[in-house]
């Protein structure tokens, strides 16, 4: 089983580093462009939420992303020690079919995560949020 780990600070500027690392891993694991796109997007949306909403102080906090390559799937775990937050409990965006004036982007990030990944699970363990994303690969 292949395993990779990326650690970034809770800072938007770190997203560039995150994307470069994911791209590198994707080349090594020979992932298709579509899988890479979906992974990049799902991870960015989750990590952005953690950076914006996970911590109430101005201090530096680490966010860990672990990727596991299994024979038929990629498992991604995103781990942070911020406030307890289960993104799956958030209501689905109710504005997807609304006319322009009522459109918003609230909840879209998690909506993407749920739609682009095959399975999403949340666990709160000790003082950590652990979000697991499963993407099947052929």
């Amino acid at each position, binding site marked *: 089983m292949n395993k990779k780990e990326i650690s970034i600070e809770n800072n*938007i*500027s770190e*997203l*560039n580093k995150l*994307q470069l690392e994911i791209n590198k891993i994707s080349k090594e694991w020979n992932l298709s*462009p*579509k899988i890479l*796109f979906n992974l*990049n*997007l799902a991870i*960015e*949306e989750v990590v*952005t939420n953690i950076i914006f909403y996970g911590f109430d102080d101005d201090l530096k906090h680490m966010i860990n992303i672990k990727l596991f390559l299994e024979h038929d799937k990629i498992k991604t775990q995103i781990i942070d020690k911020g406030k307890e937050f289960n993104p799956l409990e958030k209501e689905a965006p109710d*504005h*997807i*079919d609304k*006319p*322009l*004036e009522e*459109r*918003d*982007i609230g909840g*879209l*990030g998690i*909506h*993407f995560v749920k*739609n*682009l990944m095959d399975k999403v699970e949340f666990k709160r363990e000790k003082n950590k949020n652990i979000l697991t994303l499963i993407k099947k690969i052929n």
Partner: protein
Amino acid sequence: MEIIEKKADSFVILNLKGRLDTTNYGELEKKIFELLEKKENNIIIDCEKLDYISSSGLRILLMGLKKFKANKGKFVLCDLQENIKEIFEISGFSSIFDIYESQDEALKA
């Protein structure tokens, strides 16, 4: 992300190259405000070289659409890559934006 601007007919065309995400959406936001201040009315966002978009990017496009429509102008998209088209479908954005296959088609509309 690179934004290349040019004019054709009454349209300003913004060619987006690269990614539009949480780290750089501000660049497009700034450009949109500039165009609004210059009283430009018709915008084509050419996405041929746009490889990636996240919800932060969609937020700016939605803002652009709302603002230009409020001024009775146009804010349309063209040449979306397949992965980007899927994101527009999932988010429901494909039903609120006018999306064209090419710049030529967008100019004719």
